[in-house]
Structure formats: C-alpha cells, structure tokens
C-alpha cells in the first residue's frame, strides 16, 4: 500500500524491540505503519510476539529499542495515559477485563471514567448493548455469562467510548463460529458508520485476515511478510513453513498436487469442479 503525505498515520512502529528476560527478544526490530481508518491484521503463531506488540502499542510495556507513535504522539511515560484514551483494547480472555457487577455497569465503566453525563450514559449503554446483542442481559452478573457473551460485553465497553483505534487481541478466539461472524460484522459495520476508526486485530482467523486491508505476519518476534491479504496469502509455501493457516482451496490445491492432480490456483468449489473435469 503506498503512502501519501495526505494520509494521516494512526500508528507508526519504528524499529521496536522488546525483551522480557533481557536475553531473547520477544519483539525484534519491528517497523510498520497503519493509516487512519485501516483494518490491519497481525498474524503469527503462538509466541510470535503479536500480543507483546499490542501491549507495546497501548504503552503497557515500554520498548527496549525504537519508538511508537500514535497519531504522531510518541508513547512514553508522560503521554501513555493520554494516548490510551484514544485506544480501546479487547483481550483474548474477557475474564481479565471485567469490572462491573452487572453487564450495564461494566459497559458504563469507561464512560464513568470519562465523566459522561449519566443521562446520556444510560442511552449509550443500551445502544451499545443492543449493538452486540446483549440487551437482554443488562442486569445479569458478568460471572454468570458464557465466555462468548462476556466478550461481546467487553467489545461494547470498548466501542462505547468511541476510540480512534480499536485493538483486538484474539478477541474472537473464544467465540463460536456464529458469534465470531457476528463480532466481525459488528466491527465492520461500526467501521462503516465511522470510517475513521482504525482497527488492529491480532488473529488466527484466516477468514478475517483475508477480508482485512493489510496484513502483517510475525514470526519469532520479527516481521516476515507484509502486504495486502492477496499478496500475503499468495506466499503459500512461506506461510505453511511458519505453521500458519492458508485459505482452504489453496491448501486443497497443494494436497491434490501431492496426489499428482494439478488444479493450479483455485479459490472456489466451482473452479475446482471445472479443473477436475
């Protein structure tokens, strides 16, 4: 993706390294840029440094080398709190981010911190609960919800504060396929009504990565591939050697080749039938 001066950068990661134990780098000299309004997917196997990168972006941990800028503000001790106001983050396990004793209170928690008028808060909370399909659960205790339901509440709690950047750290990995699709559609529709929302999603979901604007592939803390989904997923051999998934029909094509059947590059069952005739 080419960058022009006009495009505002939401995030710039410049030569960032981070080490938990001062011996091995969990993130190693990683650089990339995310434009305002982009939907970017960070993919990589477990332990590739994806989550560490997310924690660096919200200033939970500081890089040992390099810099991170959010809307041209460098993240450091003095700016971290301010920068974080514009970022909503959803973690993999919703149990780690629950605060309220009911769903209603939990969604309202961020708003209370932002000193929103209580009257306005009521409407906002109901609106966002409806958006994530949890209207019937407003007075329920979060502890009694299923994992997927908790995650929808967490997403509502993040979106209700109108963040400029939404970071999802494997936010859909605990949901069932239907719930997963609902959440992804929800994020997409939010993006449609608010095209300036930048989404950074850490994911193993190939379907999601395939529909994003831009993909960054990490392995052992380093950026190994970057580009549009088409560019990234055309590097099938490399993706497979990194233990990453590739779209179904690309995989089937490789397996058929092993059986001596060459169907070439296919992406649908129609094309497969055609090639097999």
């Amino acid at each position, binding site marked *: 993706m080419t960058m022009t001066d006009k495009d505002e950068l939401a995030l710039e990661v410049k030569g960032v390294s981070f080490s938990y134990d001062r011996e091995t780098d969990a993130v190693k000299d990683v650089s990339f840029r995310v434009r305002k309004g982009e939907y970017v997917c960070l993919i990589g196997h*477990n332990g590739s440094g994806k989550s560490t990168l997310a924690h660096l972006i919200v200033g939970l941990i500081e890089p040992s080398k390099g810099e991170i800028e959010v809307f041209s503000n460098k993240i450091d001790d003095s700016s971290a709190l301010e920068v974080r106001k514009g970022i909503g983050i959803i973690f993999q396990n919703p149990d780690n981010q629950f605060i309220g004793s009911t769903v209603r209170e939990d969604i309202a928690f961020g708003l209370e911190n932002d000193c929103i008028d209580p009257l306005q808060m009521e409407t906002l909370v109901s609106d966002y609960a409806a958006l994530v399909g949890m209207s019937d659960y407003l007075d329920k205790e979060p502890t009694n919800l299923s994992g*997927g339901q908790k995650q929808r509440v967490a997403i509502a709690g993040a979106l209700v504060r109108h963040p400029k950047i939404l970071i999802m750290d494997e936010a859909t990995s605990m949901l069932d396929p239907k719930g997963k699709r609902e959440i992804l559609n929800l994020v997409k529709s939010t993006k449609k009504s608010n095209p300036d929302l930048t989404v950074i999603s850490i994911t193993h979901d190939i379907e999601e990565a395939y529909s994003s604007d831009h993909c960054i592939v990490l392995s052992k803390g380093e950026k190994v591939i970057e580009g549009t989904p088409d560019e990234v997923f055309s590097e099938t051999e490399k993706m497979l050697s990194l233990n990453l998934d590739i779209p179904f029909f690309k995989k089937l094509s490789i397996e058929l080749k092993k059986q001596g059947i060459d169907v070439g590059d296919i992406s649908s*069952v129609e094309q497969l*039938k055609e090639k097999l005739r």
Partner: protein
Amino acid sequence: MKIRLENLFYTYSPKTPFAYAALKNINLDLEGRSFMALIGETGSGKSTLVQHLNGLLTPSSGSVTVSDYQITVAEGKRRLVDLSKAGNRKIARKKKQFDIKTLRKCAGLVFQFPEYQLFEENVLKDVCFGPKNFGATQEEAEVKAKLALKLVGLDETYYSRSPFELSGGEKRRVAIAGIIALEPQVLILDEPTAGLDPEGEKEMMALFRRIYDAGTSVILVTHNMDIVLKYVDQVCVMSDGRLLKQTDPLSLFQDEDFLASTAIEPPLVFRCAKELIQDGFKLDMKNIKDISSLALEIKRAKDNG
C-alpha cells in the same frame, strides 16, 4: 466408563433476580470408552454441563452418574452414592457414600484457558500438585507427573523451568499434564484448542487421540467443526440449555433438516466434498476427515473413472 445424566436441571443463582436456567432436562447416556464432542452456541450450557461431570456443580434436580459415582439432590442437599455398594445390605448407609474427591480424580476436568491456573515455581512441581493433593507421596507424584509430561510431549528439560516463561501452547500442555497425572478415567476439556495456532491445535488434538488410545475416555467442548469431523466418534448438540441430539459426526453433518434449525455449519471440507458428490464425483464421505483425505478420495474417484 459409564456416564449417565438423567432429567438434569441446573439454575444459576436460584431464587434471586439473577436466576438463570442453564440446563433444562438433560438426558445423556454414554457407555464404554468414548471420544465425544459437545457442541452448541456460546451460552447454550456446554460448560455448565461439563462442570457437573466432576461434581463442581450440583444439579438443581435430576442425577449425574459417572462410573459408579452418583450425584443426586434431595431436599436441597447433595447426595453422593457409590452405586457399587448401593445394593449391598451389609454395608452401612453412611459407607455407601463416596468422597467427592474420588469423583474429581475419576473425571479430570480441564477448564477453558487452563494455563491461567499454573502457579508453582517449576513445571514438575506444578504437575505434582494434583496427585499429592489426592494423597500420593512425593515419589509417587513425581513418577505420575513425569509420565504425564512425557505424554503431552514435554521432556525433562522442562522439569525445572518456570511455567510462566513458557509459550501459551506449552503452558496449556503443562496444565493438561496436571490433570492427566491424576490418571482420570475420563478426561473432560472445555475448549482446549481455543486461541492456539493451527499447528498448536493439531498437536493438541493428536495428544487427546493418544490419551484416548491409551484407554481414557475424552469429552471435549468445541466450536471447531473440523475437529468434530476429523477426531471424534460421537457428538452432542446443545442449544438453550437443552441437549438436542446425540449422534456421530457424519450423521450430524448429513442431517440437513436438523442443521437448518441450528447455527451449526458443517466444515468446509465436508461442504466441498458434498458439492463434488452432487456434481457426480463418486466420493465416499466415510473416508473424508480433512483436506488431505479429501485429496486422496478425489484421486481414488478419478482413478476409478
């Protein structure tokens, strides 16, 4: 290994404004060794159900029987009866009860994201915790722990490492080893592959297959239909606190009328094979478990003209 649920109901926070009926009249029968998947939308009651199997939750009404251990409820009180002694008049009534720990050892439950429960200073100690808690000596516990770690594919170089410095997949294997070390007759796992990358998922499922082959029943909660098709023999479908169906994966995915009434979508490999069959390819669905077996089946069909 027998598991029987009869007229099982469970309500969270009964008699409060938060009351929520999570299980409604569940009846389930499993005989012999089984490899079963429990599927259904989020909130359908899967996790609530598995927490009954080792006595973590007590039924609001109805009964749970695992092996010879039966849990019922009478006048709001939990009753634990060892069925192997139940009919024997020579044994006093009190002695017919069993210790809930016996059931917990028999039915090993691994929660969602079990890696959050690791706490010891090194891997070996963490895995030893369970057996020691159930009365094993330090030596016995270590023997069991080492066997369990070997089974999950972690060698002796891991023994002295801190569980907190391992990768997510490794941590999860340590946590599962902690349950395997109890030598349960049935291993129950709540979404064991959630959050793992494809390779981690494959290794994890291969591990459960080994555990099953070694003689233990395996029950897992999953949303992943590829796993259902490839690995398990039986599948139970839950929705809104009810058990809708108990069948085998192939019958489930072929039951279009039923699927239409649920949110379940057969895996892509199944749908692809079905389209090819409808198009005249002579594929045998029984042989298709994953992408590579689909490719083999296409090859076979082509060779046979």
